[in-house]
């Protein structure tokens, strides 16, 4: 017999799943890539999870073994993830699509993650089985078991007794950080997950009620979609409607149509998505939308621009949207998901600060027309601490910019089998975020990055990956390439600068753009081909990213003129 539902929170994801109410009334609704809706009451999800766990066990997985999930359909992904969880295995979500990318580079990425996780089994679907199965041709992965959901979980489940799962057990690995060649898997334990989700969905966070409905198109291989709208919502019993990310990309307004149709109360997205729908939704569409049910429209995962959210609020006010629903947030996978949240139901707090003072790390309020707008991401959750420190690790006063640190039960133990990387980011329980920010009146304002990370459309990219790919090209000297991002109209954009000969400049510019597109699906906003020796280097001959960016921004970076361009 299942334990009776109690008012206290469960201690593991598996306990949460076991406790969810029976019956048809509550569950998850999945919109497929075929646009069909599939409704799974919790009971059906639970039954299918135990069914899949038995099959996973029968192909040779034991408690604590990693199983990679490369599954394009959300319902199949969630059921397989939960199957791995109740079986005591460790799911490793991996992004399942490679549209407009070269197949080989995609398989390379899969290979690096599968090897870093030492996964013995990969679960995919028939539609991507051919690509995933290419892994078995890679050295060291000959014995990898590839299971597709259509045939792998068919028929009577083999006998299986699920192991006992404790709060200290590993729940899953989150591979969102690290470079492509050295991916880092954040080790999320059940207790971390429960601590974080009960914080951000509990009374000090979004204050979940029994009437809430979450609506999301966020990818499930990433913490905001996976924890925010699948694992966290299961732990607190919050029904959700999920649509596939590519469906959102193809038809952005469907996100808002789904909120309208299902009376969604909570949604989340990175800044770019709010900008996109504000631009794309027509006056005619507006008349068919009703966003009055929405009490939380959260924003996170990339730098938040006040103007974008205010424009969104203005545009959708006629459709019943309330600007108090806007909820800027800050977090990272190394702390499960959430670190700080703006207060529920309150207008956003936007500071205007002096740009000259900011360059020296001081947030001085300004009313001048050139003032920088920075959005408050709110305060940490109970039981969690926030600190801002200088380069020596010393706490700085309010309004001084430093690295953002976080400590508490949500902070994970680090990266899977990677002590070196873990030691760099996790010190004495403090997570070193790599983000720059300051605190004012107790609230966090994020304003930059310590690391040279590039964030485009909510996805993290490491400059060294891009530089490496470009350095492989004919006519480019390895080590003489710099990739960095710049802010243009409040949106982060990629710039690649490489040294090359002037006669070769046009060809190189095209080849570099193609290489970046093929390997990463990214289009640089500019490719600068510069003379040999034009990029700033360290004394050891390493190209300097930050200095190159400053030169580019001030117009000091000297580029070859392209033959197809008129003289300026």
């Amino acid at each position, binding site marked *: 017999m299942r334990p009776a539902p109690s008012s206290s929170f469960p201690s593991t994801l598996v306990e949460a799943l076991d406790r969810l109410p029976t019956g048809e009334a509550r569950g998850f609704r999945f919109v497929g890539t075929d646009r069909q809706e599939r409704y799974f009451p919790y009971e059906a999800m639970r039954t299918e999870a135990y069914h899949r766990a038995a099959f996973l066990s029968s192909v040779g997985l034991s408690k604590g073994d990693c199983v990679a999930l490369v599954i394009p359909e959300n319902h199949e992904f969630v059921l397989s993830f939960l199957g791995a969880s109740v079986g005591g295995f460790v799911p490793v979500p991996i992004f399942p699509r490679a*549209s*407009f990318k070269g197949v080989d580079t995609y398989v390379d990425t899969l290979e690096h993650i599968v090897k870093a996780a030492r996964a013995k089994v990969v679960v995919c679907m028939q539609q991507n089985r051919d690509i995933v199965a290419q892994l078995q041709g890679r050295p060291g992965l000959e014995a990898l078991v590839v299971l597709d959901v259509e045939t792998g979980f068919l028929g009577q489940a083999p006998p299986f007794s699920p192991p006992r799962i404790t709060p200290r057990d590993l729940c899953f690995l989150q591979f969102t950080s690290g470079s492509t060649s050295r991916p880092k898997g954040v080790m999320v334990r059940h207790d971390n997950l429960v601590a974080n989700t009960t914080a951000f969905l509990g009374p000090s966070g979004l204050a979940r009620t029994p009437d809430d409905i979450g609506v999301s198109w966020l990818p499930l291989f990433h913490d905001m979609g996976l924890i925010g709208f699948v694992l966290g919502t299961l732990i607190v019993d919050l029904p959700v409607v999920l649509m596939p990310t*590519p469906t959102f990309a193809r038809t952005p307004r469907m996100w808002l149509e789904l909120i309208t149709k299902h009376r969604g109360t909570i949604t989340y997205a990175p800044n770019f998505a709010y900008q996109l729908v504000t631009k794309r939704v027509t006056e005619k569409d507006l008349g068919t939308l009703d966003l009055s049910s929405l009490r939380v429209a959260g924003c996170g995962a990339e730098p938040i621009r006040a103007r974008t959210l205010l424009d969104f609020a203005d545009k959708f006010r006629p459709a019943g949207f309330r600007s108090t629903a806007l909820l800027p947030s800050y977090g990272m996978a190394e702390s499960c998901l959430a670190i700080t949240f703006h207060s529920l139901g309150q207008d956003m707090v936007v500071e205007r600060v002096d740009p000259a003072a900011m360059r020296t790390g001081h947030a001085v309020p300004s009313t001048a027309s050139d003032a920088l707008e920075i959005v408050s991401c709110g305060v940490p959750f109970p039981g969690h601490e926030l600190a801002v420190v200088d380069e020596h690790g010393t706490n700085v006063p309010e309004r001084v910019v430093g690295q953002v640190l976080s400590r508490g039960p949500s902070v994970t133990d680090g990266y899977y089998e990677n002590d070196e990387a873990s030691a760099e980011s996790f010190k004495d329980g403090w997570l070193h975020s790599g983000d720059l920010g300051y605190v004012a009146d107790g609230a966090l304002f994020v304003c930059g990055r310590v690391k040279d990370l590039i964030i485009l459309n909510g996805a993290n990219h490491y400059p060294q990956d891009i530089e490496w790919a470009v350095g492989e090209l004919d006519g480019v000297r390895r080590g003489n390439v710099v990739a960095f991002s710049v802010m243009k109209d409040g949106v982060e954009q990629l710039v690649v600068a490489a040294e090359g000969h002037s006669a070769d400049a046009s060809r190189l510019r095209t080849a570099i753009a193609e290489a970046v*597109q093929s390997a990463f699906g*990214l289009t640089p906003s500019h490719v600068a081909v510069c003379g040999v020796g034009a990029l700033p280097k360290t004394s050891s001959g390493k190209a300097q990213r930050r200095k190159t960016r400053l030169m580019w921004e001030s117009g000091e970076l000297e580029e070859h003129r392209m033959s197809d361009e008129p003289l300026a």
Partner: protein
Amino acid sequence: MTRPELFQTFQRMASEIAEKDFASVQEDAKIAQLGLDSLNLLELVGQMERELGVQIPDEQLVGIQTVRQLLDLVERRLQK
């Protein structure tokens, strides 16, 4: 729909989405050269689906790297 018509449709939609002129783009252009990001590209595919009444599954977009390959795919799906 003839191939030149399909190509013109592509140029028009790409211009609408990226707010740039695609009149000088040729069919053999690499998609990487167009200045469209992965989000723009999927939006373009969605637009084609709606306007041409065709379905282009995500998994068929893997490995598509030129405008010609993309239009070949759309044409194949139109014939279905």
